[in-house]
């Protein structure tokens, strides 16, 4: 998710909160304002709000008992378990990567940094289907590496490890993309002070760096988690659709839907929708805390002075 440059956002907010007088020359005529707000509301109602309402309406169509039965179904529970397990592996790995990459990129200058940033973004621009296909080509039974794995009875493609790998690929840039701008905005003064005063690397990391970026880190985790649990295309390619065995929740939704078990499909979907809504709420609260305000004001002061 693209972040607004941290400094600019608060700058705009600050100049408003100073109680800037209404600027007569910059106000739109009331009819323009009303028309644009009306168009926005209709558009968002059709494309954002109706889908969310529809998920819950369809899920509860056959009553609350059917809804609960659909969710506690053993296959549904197996899908929930696999989804949780996949996220539990993919998220810590990618967040660790995000911390390492943001440290190297935000704190040091080295040749090829711009190229590295572009390479980190690659999974964003690869279709989920192609992402899944990469792992089938690399590790499927027909590939050299896959053949070797098959000879040793290690199943990756059409099994859980494949799902985990595809999920890691798809969610790869998320934490790094969140952390790099935050790490840059926070600045390195406090860390330099810690090192000069004799702190060891890990001491500095746990006492200075981590507290400074913790909200951004948490936000990166939330985003990564939402995408990991919700990924469909990539895991669909590598899963092989073995019922009750290699289904994540989004895949299970597809199976139910194709079986014409619509209410059950929407019941499982409603859980994923709740996850999405929780993610949005977390984003709302975490994003504003991601960059410490004090430092940003310093940043602003520096900008004004410059």
């Amino acid at each position, binding site marked *: 998710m693209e972040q607004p440059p941290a400094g600019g956002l608060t700058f705009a907010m600050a100049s408003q909160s100073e109680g800037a007088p209404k600027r007569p020359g910059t106000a739109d005529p009331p009819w323009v304002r009303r028309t644009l707000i009306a168009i926005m509301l209709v558009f968002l109602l059709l494309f954002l709000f109706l*889908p969310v309402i529809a998920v819950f309406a369809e899920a509860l169509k056959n009553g609350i008992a059917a809804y609960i039965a659909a969710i506690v179904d053993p296959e549904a529970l197996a899908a929930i378990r696999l989804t949780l397990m996949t996220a539990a592996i993919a998220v810590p790995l990618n967040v660790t990567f995000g911390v390492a990459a943001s440290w190297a990129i935000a704190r040091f200058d080295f040749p090829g940094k711009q190229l590295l940033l572009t390479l980190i973004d690659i999974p964003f*621009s690869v279709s989920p289907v192609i992402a899944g296909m990469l792992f089938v080509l690399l590790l499927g039974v027909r590939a050299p590496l896959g053949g070797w794995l098959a000879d040793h009875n290690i199943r990756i493609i059409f099994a859980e490890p494949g799902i985990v790998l595809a999920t890691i690929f798809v969610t790869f840039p998320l934490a790094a993309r969140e952390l790099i701008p935050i790490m840059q905005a926070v600045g390195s003064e406090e860390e330099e002070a810690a090192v000069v005063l004799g702190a060891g690397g890990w001491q500095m990391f746990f006492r200075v760096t981590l507290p400074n970026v913790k909200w951004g880190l948490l936000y990166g985790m939330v985003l990564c988690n939402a995408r990991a649990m919700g990924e469909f295309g990539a895991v669909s390619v590598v899963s092989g659709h073995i019922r009750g065995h290699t289904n994540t929740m989004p895949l299970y939704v597809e199976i139910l839907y194709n079986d014409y078990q619509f209410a059950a499909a929407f019941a499982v979907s409603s859980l994923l929708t709740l996850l999405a809504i929780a993610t949005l709420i977390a984003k709302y609260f975490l994003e504003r805390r991601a960059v410490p305000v004090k430092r940003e004001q310093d940043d602003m002061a520096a900008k004004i002075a410059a």
Partner: protein
Amino acid sequence: MATRTKRKNVLPGFGLTLGFTLAYLGIVVLIPISTIFFKTFTLTWPQFWAAVASPRTVAAYKLSFGASVAGASINSVFGFIVAWSLVRYEFPGKTLIDVMVDLPFALPTSVAGITLTAIYAGNGWIGQYLAPLGIKVAYAPLGVVVALTFVGLPFVVRTIQPVLEDLDQEYEEAAATLGASRLQTFVLVIAPALIPALLTGFALAFARALGEYGSVVFISGNMPMHTEVVPLLIMSKLEQFDYAGATAIAVVMLTASFAILLGINMLQRWSSRRLAA
């Protein structure tokens, strides 16, 4: 940024973090990506050409590119209106709307797919009013456009919004003082400042739409030559174990994606230069 370059760096961990970053990037991204190009080299030209230029594939390109352009264009218009309203106007429910704009990022695509299908099918909440008018959305190319509009919406809003927030209203004031009408101010002062962001948002939404699978697979109906998008075609080739054909088409799509990525990078550089100036 300029302050950091000349100082001597006392911070530890450069070798460790960069080493881990490169190793992890290599294992998770670069090695898998390279396999697809190696696999392509094992194809002969006629094989490659047969896969990427068959009538079914060409029909899928047309639908994918056409519907992605349509979705990104719809989002450019309405996304701009949403961003403008959120930044410039006060109205009840503003925070809720601001938070909800990111829903397509957060909602799993399969959920989006079945929900949009339910709404726009002939007996759905909206579909039932469109059907008598002869407008078929679900299981028709229009349904693909609807799904791709849904997934691309946040890209345009979230690209324009920060630029709009940073836009100094003094210029508008100056224009008004000098006698410009509000429309003149918009066309001559505001719009030029927003064009790079609008183009970036369009490109991001387009790139996302081009690769989209989950939300499209349910609403499109997946009829070859008619409502089959490229990711779907790749999927069906994989299901028939036609790995060569799938690879060839995937290489074409990857090349297109990388070209767009490059274009977006250049746009953003242009955009930040203009903001700095």
